[in-house]
């Protein structure tokens, strides 16, 4: 099923709930960014830092690897998802790991790590509350920061076998269950929000401290991260940390912001993953590499709020997902750049100023095949006389036929009346 079909299904089941929940987060975000008078200057600065990063990526990767080694962290480069998964497996096998606690990482979702490790007999426990909920439901996250936003407290009670639907009660219950997993896991896997090139450090932002438990308790900690997450230095980190949580959820900063260097009670490794990123760097979609995954473009998108994230069928939904998904499978995701009104709320909310409208139009061009009808119409519009003929045909066509020609429109709306005469005859 395509986006427009899944969207109908989702909205008919959810009603306005999902839209309202996300709009209230958008409002919290607006309030939080208005407390920072220099917000628009920060956006400009963040955008320029990211431009610098994508122009100097190889050099920054080299610098990061050298400094991480000095720090005592092993860094492995993985060119694709398969190489990434095999590397993770190798390190887990080395310590004969049976159970892994994982905190939120969109990259491991991108690589299909959970399924891969499951097949190899290793149990993966997602430890982010929202991710654990979708894992227990046998689903994928529907939002990159709020993975279970499509569920209700009743849904959560149901998967936990509880009758009490109080959110605080359910959260505590989940914490109890997860604490046992943390204590018995052989390794922790997490993503990273930023890698600081001139220090060799990884920065992980969470609200639940689950990444920290996974990083600190087990003897092995693996960080899986995309190469574009590198930033030059700690001053740049300051810029992003002021923006990330404010833009994502309206918090000043995430509850836990951990800067991870050498692991003192075991081993920490970082897997730097390419998986098509270098190729994207040399394409007209390179600006998507500026993304810091704050998720504000999803939350603000009026289509996303009504269709839900699963309608996009890709691990990253919403506006940024509509730019990334077709690059992974052009045929399957050709509908996504059109699941958009070009309202530009995404680019206006984006902390690194990704030019979404221009990129989405380029993506529409990328997925669109030549079409004779459009070609004919385009040609005719070069001549006012041919245009006139089109206009006469439009007025002679029976309304029923017109309705059929625009059936997605006429299912829900009346057709506008077409007046007899035009302004320019």
């Amino acid at each position: 099923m395509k986006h427009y079909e899944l969207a109908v299904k989702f909205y008919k089941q959810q009603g306005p709930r999902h839209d309202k929940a996300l709009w209230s987060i958008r409002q919290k975000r607006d309030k939080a960014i208005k407390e920072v008078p220099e917000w628009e200057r920060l956006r400009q600065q963040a955008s320029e830092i990211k431009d610098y990063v994508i122009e100097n990526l190889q050099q920054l990767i080299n610098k990061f690897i050298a400094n991480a080694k000095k720090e005592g962290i092993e860094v492995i480069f993985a060119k694709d998802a398969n190489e990434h998964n095999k590397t993770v497996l190798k390190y887990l096998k080395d310590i004969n790991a049976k159970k892994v606690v994982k905190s939120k990482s969109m990259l491991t979702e991108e690589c299909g790590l959970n399924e891969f490790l499951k097949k190899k007999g290793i149990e993966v426990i997602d430890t982010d509350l929202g991710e654990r909920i979708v894992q227990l439901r046998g689903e994928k996250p529907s939002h990159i920061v709020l993975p279970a936003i499509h569920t209700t407290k009743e849904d959560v009670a149901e998967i936990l076998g509880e009758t009490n639907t109080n959110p605080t009660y359910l959260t505590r219950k989940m914490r109890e269950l997860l604490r046992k997993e943390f204590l018995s896991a052989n390794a922790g896997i997490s993503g990273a929000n930023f890698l600081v090139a001139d220090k060799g450090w990884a920065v992980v932002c969470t609200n639940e401290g689950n990444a920290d438990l996974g990083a600190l308790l087990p003897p092995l900690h693996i960080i899986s991260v995309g190469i574009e997450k590198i930033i030059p230095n700690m001053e740049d980190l300051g810029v992003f940390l002021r923006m990330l949580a404010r833009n994502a959820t309206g918090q000043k900063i995430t509850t836990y912001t951990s800067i991870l260097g050498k692991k003192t009670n075991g081993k920490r490794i970082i897997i730097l993953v390419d998986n098509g990123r270098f190729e994207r760097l040399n394409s007209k979609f390179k600006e998507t590499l500026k993304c810091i995954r704050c998720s504000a473009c999803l939350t603000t998108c009026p289509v996303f709020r009504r269709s839900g994230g699963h309608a996009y069928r890709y691990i990253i939904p919403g506006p940024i997902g509509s730019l990334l998904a077709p690059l992974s499978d052009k045929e399957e995701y050709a509908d996504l750049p059109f699941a958009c009104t070009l309202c530009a709320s995404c680019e206006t909310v984006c902390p690194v100023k990704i030019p979404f409208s221009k990129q989405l139009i380029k993506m529409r061009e990328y997925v669109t095949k030549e079409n004779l009808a459009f070609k004919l119409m385009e040609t005719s519009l070069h001549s006012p006389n041919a245009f006139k003929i089109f206009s006469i045909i439009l007025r002679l066509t029976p309304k029923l036929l017109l309705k059929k020609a625009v059936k997605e429109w006429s299912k829900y709306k009346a057709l506008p009346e077409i007046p007899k005469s035009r302004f320019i005859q």
Partner: protein
Amino acid sequence: MNIALHVPCYINELNPEIARKTLLILRHFGLNVSVPKEQTCCGQPFINSGYKTSLPNRFEEIFKDFDYIVSPSSSCVSTVRAQNLSVSNKTFELCEFLHDIVQIKAIAKNYPKTIVLHNSCHSLRHLLEGMPSELNIPYFNKVKAVLGSNIKEADRDECCGFGGIFSLKEGFISYVMGRNKLDDLKNKGDVITGVDYSCLFHLKSIAEKDGDNIEIKHISEILYESLER
């Protein structure tokens, strides 16, 4: 000052009165306005549908010798601006032109009905004719200023769900967004207006199908009526 009136193709077909009234408004202020007869379409429907087109170059060719090009459609103006043509920076949406160049305000201040302004996305976010809620900049709204005081706006400045090709591909979500927008606007005043007739005929089509009794008028109609009084 030589001014050209751009007549958006969909306005020429669906509501030619908007073009006529825009022309009369500009002439009311003593401006020298002509209407190039050979104009057709700026290319927006093709560009936004993912097709290559040379229509923007044709637009440039037709309009290049004018000092200003004024259009009663912010989505057409956005398209022309985004193409980086020699005419890009002298092409204006009607209210933007009245505000920035003619410098006239509060034309509809004595309008007998309460006006509810729908800020279209192309006006608000692409042309920045007002402050979109996403930004941390001081409040302003040029369209509102041209209309006058006591103009109502929607609670949410989000998209109405038209989106051109979007409305033909995602009929249901387009409808829901339009329905939500109508509900947000309709109890705030007597007449809904905006600078983009595309948003407005989408909202009208929903109002008609759902049986909402509500007046929806393009801004040129309100400005023209106000000048006539």
